[in-house]
């Protein structure tokens, strides 16, 4: 198990184009995901909201040595981490879907993915694709969603990464979300295009 220091190094390597780094990072994210899921299973009870945020923050902190990042380019790093999470989570969803259909077995170690339903996976993939389409129209909004949703960044952190004010993030977020929501609705079977 690499330390968070190593994880950070791997992330930086990946952002420099080292694809092998992704292979090492993916199982770590899967493991965190499963750990989180277990946290929910164990602790989730009605009315206990704070748990969620704590777990997410913890997962994020666990994976990345932020101190090490600090003196480098923090904003850039936020972007890299978010991009990585998007890539891994969508792969996770995609692999899961394949697994359910009986194809592609053995390509990825899917033990961790074994519990996600096809429907949910499909939504993840649809969102990823819609985000790609949004990028063609409005790259900044697409990136914003990547940072906030996939990267789990706060409004302030997203603003920092995009080099805009938190107010701008708040304002621009609304249209991005409305647009994506509409895209996903359109893809529902009864919706049609």
């Amino acid at each position: 198990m690499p330390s968070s220091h190593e994880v950070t190094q791997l992330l930086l390597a990946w952002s420099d184009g080292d694809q092998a780094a992704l292979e090492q990072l993916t199982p770590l994210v899967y493991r965190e995901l499963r750990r989180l899921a277990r946290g929910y299973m164990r602790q989730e009870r009605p009315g206990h909201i704070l748990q969620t945020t704590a777990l997410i923050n913890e997962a994020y902190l666990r994976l990345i040595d932020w101190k090490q990042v600090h003196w480098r380019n923090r904003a850039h790093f936020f972007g890299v981490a978010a991009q990585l999470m998007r890539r891994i989570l969508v792969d996770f969803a995609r692999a899961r879907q394949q697994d359910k259909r009986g194809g592609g077995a053995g390509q990825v170690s899917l033990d961790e993915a074994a519990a996600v339903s096809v429907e949910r996976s499909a939504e993840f993939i649809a969102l990823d694709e819609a985000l790609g389409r949004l990028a063609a129209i409005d790259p900044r909004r697409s990136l914003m969603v990547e940072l906030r949703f996939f990267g789990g960044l706060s409004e302030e952190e997203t603003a920092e990464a995009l080099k805009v004010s938190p107010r701008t993030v708040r304002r621009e977020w609304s249209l991005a979300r409305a647009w994506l929501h509409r895209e996903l609705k359109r893809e529902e079977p009864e919706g049609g295009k």
Partner: protein
Amino acid sequence: MKPERWKQIEQLYDAALERNADRRASFLDQACEGDEELRREVASLLASDEQAGSFLAAPATEVMARSVAAEGASSLIGRLIGAYQVQSLLGAGGMGEVYLARDIRLGRKVAIKVLTAFIAQDVDRLRRFEREARAISALNHPNILTVYDIGAYEGLPYIVAELLEGQELRAQLPPTAEAGALPLRMALGYAQQVAHGLAAAHEKGVVHRDLKPENLFVLADGRVKILDFGLAKLKPHGEAGLDSQAAAQNQLTDPGAVMGTVGYMAPEQVRGHETDHRADIFAFGVILYEMFSGRRPFVGESPIEVMNAILKEEPPELGEANVKISPQLEKIVRRCLEKRPERRFQSTSDLCFALEALSMPSGSALTTTTNALEATKRGRRRELGAWIAAGVFAARRNSRRTGVGLLTSRMNRAAMKSTCSRSPRTASWEPTRNASQRVAAANHASGATGGNCFTSPPTGR
């Protein structure tokens, strides 16, 4: 779409949002100036915004993890962990989940605890844990859970141990002070067994560090086993910020969880100082106090208050709560609960002897106020042989099932005599939640996500 067009849409959308919902239609009519397509586009986005609810409100990791949680409540079931086929969930607690599993090589049933609460990131700590697990399993002591195997499954440490039938000591302790103490003889029997187990471990240099009623398991025949030796060391210490944050979260969500652990900490642990076996002696003293009085020695509204009490307060005399407590017993408990480690029992064997002396016929430790007790004492010598035989029988029968050592020691007599009034169940470490509760939790998680997987519970971030 042309950038200019998108810019137009964006501006109109933002401007419309700034207006009250009932004014938006007329605003768009006016602003679009007959550009019907533009109007339709903006109106549909505004409608989408209204429908979106908590869409994308929670981060992707959380959404995915919730999906996994909702549908994978028993994701380890059916898997092969090492040589162990996981069959069903026995319970889940703070450190991990305990499953019933089958050792496919030996064909016996075992309990397997997967420590899901943390990842074995710290190799040194994991090695130390393995070393201690080896030391503990080498003891083969009747009052310590027998560990068969340890390992790591996809980075999660796991422990394989004998399958026990019975319940946590916690389940036998009164939930409220009014409910009273444990029967004296039963409590003393438990105390002696735990002390023997502890002494054996301490002799090998293994300290528990998290001794509490949740970690003491009472078998159907009255024998007590100490669980989770050395596990406390696996808990992360380095991330102090995270720890206190997590503790605070826990306190808000489940005060009992933190209080439960905090209440058994020795003063030196509270202060974060180095600890040794004498911290276990302190925790043992807290357990004694609880068993004999039905009360916690250190109480407070919050973990901080409890810790403060541990550092500064002297608990009320045991005799106040339970008139049957002898001065000798009172003295033993007091000595365990000394604030300074050097004033406590220095060796756990000494503590054992002191407890043993209490139940000797010549000792007057258990007060002689009850006739029943007198009668028992008179009959003791006569019964002795029978009890030893019963003890050996129980141990033999048990050893066939679980591989426990052959001889139960003399200290088990009292415990075996006092039969457990509650019905035993198959369980193991920390069986704090049963399967149906877990399913309920998972359902809650899935229910909260509603129709769309990116929406979060309304109460979320």
